[in-house]
Structure formats: C-alpha cells, structure tokens
C-alpha cells in the first residue's frame, strides 16, 4: 500500500510527465488557456492513460512476451491508444459537445501525445505489476492535469501583465512554463 502511494505521488510530482520529463508539451501549451478546457483535457488524458495501461499491460505480458515480440510494443501500444482516443472523442461529442469543440484539434492529438505512450512503455520498463501500472498511469494523468491547471492560472495572470512587445505570445508562455517547471524541481528527492 505504501509503495503504491509512493508511485502515485512520484508520478504526479517528482516525475511529473510535463514539467519534469517534458512529455506532452504540445497540449500543455495549446489547451492551458482556459481553466475549464485545461481540466477537461486533463480528465480525458487521464482516462486514456488508465484505459491504455489496462489493455497494453495484458497484451505485453500475455501475447507479446510469450511469442518473443517485445520489439512490437510501440506499434501495438500506439494502436491501442488511438483506439481509446477515438472512443473518448465519440463519447465527448455525444455527452459534452461544448468541451468537444473547445478542445478542438488537441483531442485527436492525444493519440500522438508522447506522455500517454510514455506511461505505457515506462510501466513495462520499470517492471511494475498490473496494479502498480494502473496507479502509475493514474498518477501520471493527475500530474498532467495538475500541470495544465496550474499553468492555466499562470496564463490568466499573464494576460494582464505588461509584457515587452518582443516577448508577447509564445516566447513569454515558454518562459513562464520553464519557471513552473523549475518550481517542480523542488519536489525532487522527496520520495527516494
């Protein structure tokens, strides 16, 4: 139980996928403009991460390893992730159309979000058990949402800031992202 909690918290804070491992930067910068779309995107990514882990883990250990096909991991995992992203997309279109339109192009882009593929591959690399893998995926997803929500708050403040003409827009956003990332370095060594 204690080890599960450590996996959850370290995936969220010390090894935050966006701010410490620098995965999934594209949606991080693209969807963090508004709080509601940021949290919606976080939930969608968490859902896809957990579902993908639940399916990729048995596929890896049940089908690929017995046949000596470990090198097939990436291809099959991408296929599974694409499937779940498509599922989330059709579900959102039906249930929450407003969120569907506000996420726009970033929703299908979860497919190529390296954070999702990263979670599934790292679960295998770290030799986690099934439960540990799911907890790790949950932590990674929550960490992604945490980063997005924090950064949407930062960007809201930045809209009122007097930024020099040269830095307006993307440059200022990237600088702010790096500062948030530095602040997350404060967590390093917390659970080791």
């Amino acid at each position, binding site marked *: 139980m204690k080890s599960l909690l450590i996996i959850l918290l370290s995936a969220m804070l010390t090894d935050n996928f966006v701010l410490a491992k620098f995965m999934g930067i594209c949606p991080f910068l693209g969807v963090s403009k508004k709080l509601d779309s940021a949290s919606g995107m976080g939930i969608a990514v968490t859902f896809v991460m957990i579902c993908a882990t639940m399916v990729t883990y048995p596929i890896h250990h049940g089908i*690929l390893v017995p046949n000596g096909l470990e090198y*097939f991991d990436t291809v099959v995992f991408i*296929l*599974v992730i694409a*499937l779940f992203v498509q*599922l989330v997309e*059709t*579900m959102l*279109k*039906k249930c929450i159309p407003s969120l569907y339109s506000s996420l726009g192009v970033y929703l299908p882009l979860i497919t190529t979000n390296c954070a999702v593929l990263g979670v599934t591959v790292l679960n295998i690399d770290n030799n986690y058990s099934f439960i540990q893998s799911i907890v790790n995926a949950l932590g990674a997803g929550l960490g992604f949402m945490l980063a997005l929500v924090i950064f949407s708050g930062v960007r809201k403040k930045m809209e009122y800031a007097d930024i020099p003409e040269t830095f307006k827009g993307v440059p200022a956003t990237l600088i702010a992202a790096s500062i948030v990332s530095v602040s997350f370095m404060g967590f390093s060594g917390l659970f080791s």
Partner: protein
Amino acid sequence: MTYLIPIIILAGCGLLAGVLLTIAAKVFYVKTDERVAKISEALPQANCGACGFAGCSDYANAVVNSGAATNLCRPGGADAAGKIAEILGVAAAEVVPMTAVVHCNGNCDATSPQFDFDGVQSCKAVKRFYNGSGTCKYGCIGLGDCVDICEHDAISIVNGVAKVTPLLCGACGQCAEVCPNKLISIKPLSGHVDVLCSSKDNGKITKQSCSNGCIGCKMCEKKCASEAIKVIDFHAVIDYNKCISCGECVKVCPVKAIHSCMVAAEQKD
C-alpha cells in the same frame, strides 16, 4: 512462422479495434443536421471571418441552429445567400454588394519617402520603424501587406499605392485588418464617391508632404446637399448611408482628393 505470428497479432488487434469503434460509433451516434453540411458546401470556404463567425462551417452551424442572417457571407455575395435561403426554404435576403477601398492616393508623383528602409519589406515592419518611411505618416506604405493577405487577388500596388479592384473584391475585410495605417475600409459598392486621403495633419502640413492629400478645407461639406460628408481630423469622411453619389464634392475639391470610382462599380453589375 516467425513472420506470420506478428502479422496475425497486429491484424487481430487492428480488427478488434475496428469492431469496437464501429460499435461505439453506433452507440454514441450524434444526429447532425444535414442542412449544415449543405450550407457549408454552398459557402466559398475562404474562412475569412467577414461574417463575424470563426469560419465557414461555424457560420453554417449558426445559420441553422441560432438563426443567423443568410446574407452575411461577403465573398459569396448574392450567390451564396440565395443558395442558403434555398436550403433553409426561406426568402432570400437582400445582399448589398460591398467592396474595400484604400483611402490614400499618395502615389510616387504626389509624395516622396523620408528615408530608405532596408529592413524586412513589410508595411508592419516599416511602420514600427519611426512610424513609417513616407513623408506622410498616415499614407499607404506600399509594400503590400494587404496584397499578400488578399485571397481574391483584388489588390495590387500601383505607382506606390495599394489599389482595390472592386470587380474581384470579396469585401472580407482582411486587408483592412492588416493595414498598419488603417487605410482600408469596407463600403457599399453603389456609393462610388471615395475620399482618397486619411491624413490627420492640418492642411499646411498635408500640403507640404503630399500634393494629393485632403487639406480639410470643408468645401465638400458645404457643397453636399445630403449632409453626407464631414471633415473629421482634417480629412473628409463620407457617410454612405446618406450619400446619394451625386458627385458634387468631386467637382468642388480643390486638391482632387475625392474620386469617383463609378466605372468599376458599373463593371461589377
């Protein structure tokens, strides 16, 4: 067998995923109004935003679902409005043909540059550098930011000044947005009398910097029978809601800053 097993596994995964998605698509089927797709087809797909919506598909959606007017598409004009009305089964709304007009006539014969600019050749860059390179700070810079953005090839630089060909203009207003001096406005095609100057300097300074500039003498204002023309900030501005296109102001202007673009207007009709 070494090759067969991976192929079978991958094909199996793909097939399974396909079946799952088909089921999901049936379960979560969203009924979309087919009129939206039809209207979207009838629009020019320029995605210019002149209608006030985010793009052609957004406008099509708004027409069907929130009752937006059918005559907002400027590039499509009467043609698109007619098609939309036909799809919706309502009477076609009247479309006033519009065109862009550049309010400057400071060509190479009338005015001169103050300095040579060797930086990035765009109006926006020049404008940032000491407010532009021309003697007149309000006039056309002539590097063609508007030409680049125009999707209808309606603007060209003639003798150092941007000129709109009303025949081609879709009146989407993107050029008006991109012009750093805000020289371009969208006006009804029928009102063909244009003031081709935007200088906010007083008469004396304008006269010194450009021989085609409006000096703000108010002769046109006095002559106008329908009170459509007003001198604001030392240059004349025409209210097209009142203008009857009589052309009296064109005749009376001492510096010939007011022009009649009648020929072009007749061609479009």
